[in-house]
C-alpha cells in the first residue's frame, strides 16, 4: 500500500481532538470565546455519546453540572432538553449535599449536542482520526489526521477518552477497540510517548443491555421521577418541567447469581490476570463485588431506560467482563430478568491515560506547551468529570490562543477545582471519581449557589450572554435585599407564640429578628412569611439561597474563615524556574515530589503527600529570600 501523503489543511486558533463530553465543552467554550475552533473526532455518531450509564448528575457530579452551567458550559442545557426522568437526591439531608440526577435519552442527548455544535459560530466539526501531534521546540502547533490532513493551531486540546489503545475484553474474547466498538486510536499514544509523556493503563467496564419487553417489571420496584420541578441549568424555566417521565426499576442479585459468578471466576478476565489495567474501587464489576463482599447476600441492580425511542435497558451496577454465555446465566438468575433478552453484552475496556501530574491547573501539559488534555484520558471517570475538565481546558486553550493568562479554579471555588487540584497535585492510581467527601469546603460548594460562585467568572471570560448576566445580577440583588430585610425585621413574641405553641416549640420571651427566627429548625421560609411577609413574591431560587445562607450561617462562616487562610497560601506563588536542588534543608522525599509535581503555589505544595510543614516553611523562606535578593540587586 502506498503511504498516506500529508497535506496542509486549515489553520485554526484552537483544535479540539475528540468529541465526547470533554471535547464538546472544550470546543464550544473556545468558539464562544471568539477563537476559530475545529472539533475533530473519530466518529460523528459518537459525539456526546454515553457509552455507559444513561444518566447525568448525582452527588458531587450534579453540582459539577451546575458549575459547568454557571460558567457558561453546555452540559446543563443539553440534559435539560433531553432528560426522561429527573430526581433530587439527598433531600432529607443538608443543603450542601442535595444533588440533582437525570436519566438521559442517550440518542436525543447526542443529537441535541450535535445540533448545538453545528449551530455554533467559529466552530467546525470534522470526522477524522488524529494520529500525531505537530510539535516544534516543545510547543504543540497542530495535529495530523489519518487522512494526511495537517491542522495547524495556536493551541490543541486532546480529549481521547478511552479510545487510546483501547482494548475490549469479554471473557476469553479480546480485541482492539474504542468504547462501544468504535475505532481505537493507536498512533496518538505513540506520538505522546515519543514526546516524553508518561502513560499508564486504566480499566473500566460497562454492564449488559437487555430488551425492555423481555423484563418482568412486576418483580421489580419502581423508581419514578420527581413531581417537583428542578433543572440543571439556572436558565431552564420550571414551566418546561417534563410531566411524562419514564421510571427506573430496582431488583437484586441473589445466591444463585453469586454461585454462577463464583463457579466461573476462572473465566473472569479480572481474576484470570488478562486485565492489567487498574480499575476503579467505586465502580467495581459485579464479579469483583461478589468476591470482595462475600458475605453480602444480594446486590442492588437498577434497570434504566436508555431513551424514549428505544426498548434498550441498561442493567445498572451489573458491570461485568464475564464471557457472554456466563453473562446470560447471571442475568437470568435475577428476579425480573428470568427471560431477559440480551442486546449488548457487558465488557471491560483497557485504555491509556496521561499521568495527570504532568499537567498544570489550567490543564496545559508541562511536557508540551500549548497542549491541553481533558477528560477520561486524564485518569477520571464519569461524563460530568470529563465535561468539567473539558470546559477548563477549552477556556485555557482559547486564552492561550489569544495570548492571555490562564484561568484556574481553586478548591474553594468549585468541585471542578477540587478535581483538577487532586489530579495535578496527587495524580491518581485508579479512575478518579468526584465524591462530596473529596471537597473540604462542601458547605460552600453547594448546587444552589453555583451561579453565585462562578457566573461572574464566566462573564469575565465572555461565556455568559448579556441577557443571562442581567438575570444573574437581578437574582443577586434580590438575595441581598431579602437578607437585609430579614436581618432588620423584628418579630414580636405575641405574634409568633401561638404558632410556636401549635408546633410544640418553646415560646419566645423577647422580640427576635426575622433572620434569627428562621434559624430555628422548625421554621421554614414559608412559615416565616406569615409574620414577615415579603413585599413581592420572590423567585424560588432566591428563597432557597436566602434560607440556606441564614439557616447555616454559623457553619458557613467557619468554612469561610479557613478559606480566607487558604487563599493567602494560594496567593504565594512558587517561581516557575525554582531549583529545588539548590534549597538546603528540604527532606529528600519532599525534594523529589516537588521536582516531579512542580506545584504552582505554596498551598498546592502543602497538599503533596510527603511534603511536611518544615519543608513548606523552608520553601517559603527560600522564596522570600529570592524576592528580597531581587529587590536589592
Amino acid at each position, binding site marked *: 500500500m502506498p503511504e498516506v501523503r500529508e497535506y496542509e489543511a486549515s489553520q485554526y486558533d484552537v483544535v479540539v481532538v475528540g468529541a465526547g463530553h470533554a471535547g464538546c465543552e472544550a470546543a464550544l467554550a473556545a468558539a464562544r470565546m471568539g477563537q476559530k475552533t475545529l472539533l475533530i473526532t473519530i466518529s460523528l455518531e459518537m459525539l456526546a455519546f454515553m457509552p455507559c*450509564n444513561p444518566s447525568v448528575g*448525582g*452527588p458531587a457530579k450534579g453540582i459539577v453540572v451546575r458549575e459547568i452551567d454557571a460558567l457558561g458550559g453546555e452540559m446543563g442545557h443539553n440534559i435539560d432538553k433531553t432528560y426522561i426522568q429527573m430526581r433530587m*437526591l*439527598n433531600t432529607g*439531608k*443538608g*443543603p*450542601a*449535599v442535595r*444533588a440533582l440526577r437525570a436519566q438521559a435519552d442517550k440518542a436525543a442527548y447526542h443529537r441535541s449536542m450535535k445540533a448545538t455544535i453545528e449551530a455554533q459560530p467559529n466552530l467546525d466539526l470534522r470526522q477524522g482520526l488524529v494520529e500525531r501531534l505537530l510539535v516544534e521546540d516543545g510547543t504543540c502547533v497542530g495535529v495530523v489526521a489519518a487522512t494526511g490532513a495537517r491542522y495547524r493551531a495556536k493551541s490543541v486540546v486532546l480529549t481521547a477518552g478511552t479510545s487510546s489503545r483501547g482494548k475490549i475484553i469479554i471473557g476469553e474474547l479480546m480485541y482492539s477497540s474504542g468504547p462501544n466498538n468504535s475505532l481505537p486510536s493507536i498512533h496518538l499514544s505513540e506520538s505522546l510517548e515519543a514526546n516524553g509523556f508518561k502513560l499508564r493503563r486504566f480499566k473500566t467496564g460497562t454492564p449488559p443491555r437487555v430488551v425492555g419487553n423481555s423484563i418482568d417489571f412486576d418483580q421489580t420496584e419502581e*423508581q419514578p421521577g420527581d413531581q417537583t420541578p428542578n433543572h440543571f441549568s439556572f436558565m431552564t424555566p420550571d414551566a418546561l418541567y417534563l410531566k411524562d417521565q419514564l421510571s427506573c426499576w430496582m431488583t437484586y442479585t441473589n445466591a444463585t447469581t453469586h454461585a454462577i459468578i463464583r463457579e466461573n471466576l476462572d473465566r473472569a478476565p479480572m481474576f484470570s490476570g488478562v486485565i492489567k489495567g487498574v480499575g476503579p*474501587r*467505586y*465502580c*467495581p464489576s459485579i464479579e469483583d*463485588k461478589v468476591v470482595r463482599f462475600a458475605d453480602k447476600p444480594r*446486590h*442492588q441492580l*437498577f434497570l434504566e431506560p436508555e431513551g424514549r425511542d428505544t426498548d434498550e435497558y441498561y442493567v*445498572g*451496577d451489573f458491570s461485568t467482563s464475564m464471557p457472554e454465555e456466563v453473562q446470560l446465566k447471571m442475568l437470568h438468575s435475577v428476579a425480573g430478568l428470568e427471560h431477559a433478552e440480551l442486546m449488548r453484552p457487558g465488557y471491560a475496556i483497557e485504555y491509556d491515560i496521561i499521568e495527570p501530574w504532568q499537567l498544570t491547573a489550567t490543564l496545559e501539559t508541562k511536557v508540551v506547551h500549548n497542549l491541553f488534555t481533558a477528560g477520561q484520558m486524564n485518569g477520571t471517570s464519569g461524563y460530568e468529570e470529563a465535561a468539567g475538565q473539558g470546559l477548563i481546558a477549552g477556556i485555557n486553550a482559547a486564552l492561550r490562543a489569544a495570548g492571555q493568562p490562564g484561568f484556574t479554579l481553586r*478548591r474553594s471555588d468549585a468541585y471542578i477545582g477540587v478535581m483538577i487540584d487532586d489530579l495535578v497535585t*496527587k495524580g491518581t492510581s485508579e479512575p478518579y471519581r468526584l*465524591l*462530596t*467527601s*473529596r471537597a*473540604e469546603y*462542601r*458547605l460552600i460548594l453547594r448546587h444552589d449557589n453555583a451561579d453565585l460562585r462562578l457566573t461572574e467568572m464566566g462573564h469575565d471570560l465572555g461565556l455568559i450572554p448579556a441577557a443571562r448576566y442581567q438575570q444573574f445580577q437581578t437574582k443577586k440583588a434580590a438575595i441581598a435585599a431579602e437578607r437585609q430585610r430579614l436581618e432588620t425585621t423584628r418579630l414580636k413574641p405575641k405574634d409568633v407564640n401561638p404558632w410556636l405553641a401549635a408546633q410544640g416549640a418553646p415560646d419566645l420571651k423577647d422580640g427576635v429578628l426575622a433572620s434569627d427566627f428562621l434559624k*430555628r*429548625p*422548625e421554621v421554614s421560609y414559608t412559615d416565616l412569611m406569615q409574620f414577615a411577609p415579603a413585599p413581592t413574591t420572590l423567585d424560588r431560587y432566591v428563597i432557597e439561597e436566602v434560607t440556606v445562607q441564614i439557616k*447555616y450561617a454559623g*457553619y458557613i462562616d467557619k*468554612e469561610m474563615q*479557613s478559606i480566607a*487562610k*487558604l487563599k*493567602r*497560601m494560594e496567593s*504565594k506563588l512558587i517561581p516557575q524556574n525554582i531549583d529545588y536542588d539548590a*534549597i*538546603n*534543608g528540604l527532606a529528600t522525599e519532599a525534594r523529589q515530589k516537588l521536582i516531579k509535581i512542580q506545584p504552582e503555589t*505554596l*498551598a498546592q505544595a*502543602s*497538599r503533596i503527600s510527603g511534603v511536611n*510543614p*518544615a519543608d513548606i*516553611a*523552608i520553601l*517559603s*523562606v*527560600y522564596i*522570600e*529570600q529570592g524576592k*528580597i535578593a531581587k529587590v536589592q540587586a
Partner: protein
Amino acid sequence: MATTITEYDTIAAISTPPGEGAISIVRLSGENAIATAQRLFKGKDLTQVPTHTINYGHILEPDNGAVVDEVMVSVLRAPKTYTREDMVEINCHGGIVPTNRILQLLLGLGARLAEPGEFTKRAFLNGRVDLTQAESVMDLIRAKTDRAMQVAVDQLDGDLRRLITNLRQEILEVLAQVEVNIDYPEYDTDQMTTQMLQEKAQQVLAKVDELLQTASQGKVLREGLATAIVGRPNVGKSSLLNHMLHEDKAIVTDVAGTTRDVLEEYVNVRGVPLKLIDTAGIRDTEDKVEKIGVERSRQAITKADLILLVMDASQPLTAEDQALLSATDAKRRLVILNKQDLPVQLDLGDAVPEADIIRTSITTGAGVAALDTKIADIFAGGIDNSQTTVMVSNARQIGLLQQAKASLKSVLTGIAAGMPIDLVQIDMTAAWDKLGEITGDAAPDELITQLFSQFCLGK
C-alpha cells in the same frame, strides 16, 4: 481530607528556658493572638487596650474560673512587633507548672504550638529579619523540626496511641457511614441518623474527657512527679536526696546498705514538684531487713514516673548495675554517673542515650545544676509511663485533645439545634482531624479508602 494550613495560624510557645528564673513568658503570635489571650484573662479587656502596654491581671481556668497564675500581659499589635503580627506575651510568676498550664489552655483555644524557629521564620517572612539571616532560619527549621517531630512521636505512649487510634477508627466508621449515605443515597446501606451520631459523639467525648483527666501534668501538679532514686549501695543516692532536700534526712554512711527505709519527700526542682522515693538499693542479700528494703525498691520503681539511677563512675560496671539498667529500662530515666571527682572507670557503652546521662560529683556539687535543668526539661516535655492509666503527657497533646473536645461539643449542640447530619459531620471530622494530629496519623484519602473498604458500592 482537610488540609492543615499552618502558615497563618496563631502560634504559642513558652519562650523562656524551662525552669530558669523566677518569671517565664508564654508568647503568642498571629491574628487571633490577642482575642485568644483575652479568653483566659481577667483584668482589662486586652482587645481594647492600647498597643505596647503591659497589663496586670490573672489567668483563669475557663471551666471553673480558678486562678492559674497572677500575670503581666504585654499586648503588641502589628506591625511593630518581632513577627510583625499581633503578639501577646504573658509573664507568669508561678514557675513551670502554671506556665505549662497557661500554654495548654491557649492550645485548647485553638492556638498551635509553635514549631522550633517559627517566630523567627514569621519575622523573616513578614520582612522583619534581614536576608543574611534567612539561611540560618532555614537551618534552624530543619535541624530542630526533625528532632522535635521525633521527640513528639517518641513521647507518645504506646497505650495512648492505641487508644487514640481506636477512637479515630470509631469516628472514621461513622464518618464513612454518613458519607456513603450522601454519595450513594440509593444504596441499601444502613442510614446513619443524627441520633446515632449523637451517641457516638457522646461516647468519644467521654473518653476524651477521661484522657484529659489523666493528663500527667495535672496529676503531677496534684501529686508531684513520683521519682525513685535507685542504685546499688553506696553510690551516692542518699547524698543526692540530701542535696535535693537541702538537709540531712536520710542516714548517710559509708557502710553499704545503711539506708533501710523508703523515704518519701516532696521537693521542688525548678518549679517541678517531685515526690522523691529513696530506696535501699537493689541487691541480693540474705539480710532480712535489707530484703524488705529491696522489695520496696522494686515497688518504688513500679510506682515511679521518673527514675534517677545513680551509678558510681569510679568503678567498672557491675552485674547489679546491669540488672538495675534493665529493671528501669522501660521507664523515663536519667542515669547519674556520680563520683566524677574520682578517676572514671565506668563504661556504659551505648546502653543509655547520651541525652539521658548526667555526670555529677554530688560531694563537690558538680553537675547537680544540670540535673535540675534536665528534670525541668523532662517535665516540660512530658512524662508518659504511668503503670495504671493511659496518660496524656504534654501541652501539645492536651491542647489538641481540648480542641477535639470542643469539636465534639459542637457536634452535640448542632444536633440539638436540629442541624442536618452532613453539617454536624463537619465538627465530627474536625474532632477526628485533631485526634489524628496527636498521633501524626492523618493519612491522605483515609476516609475515601474507608468508604470503599467498608461498603460495597456500584456506579
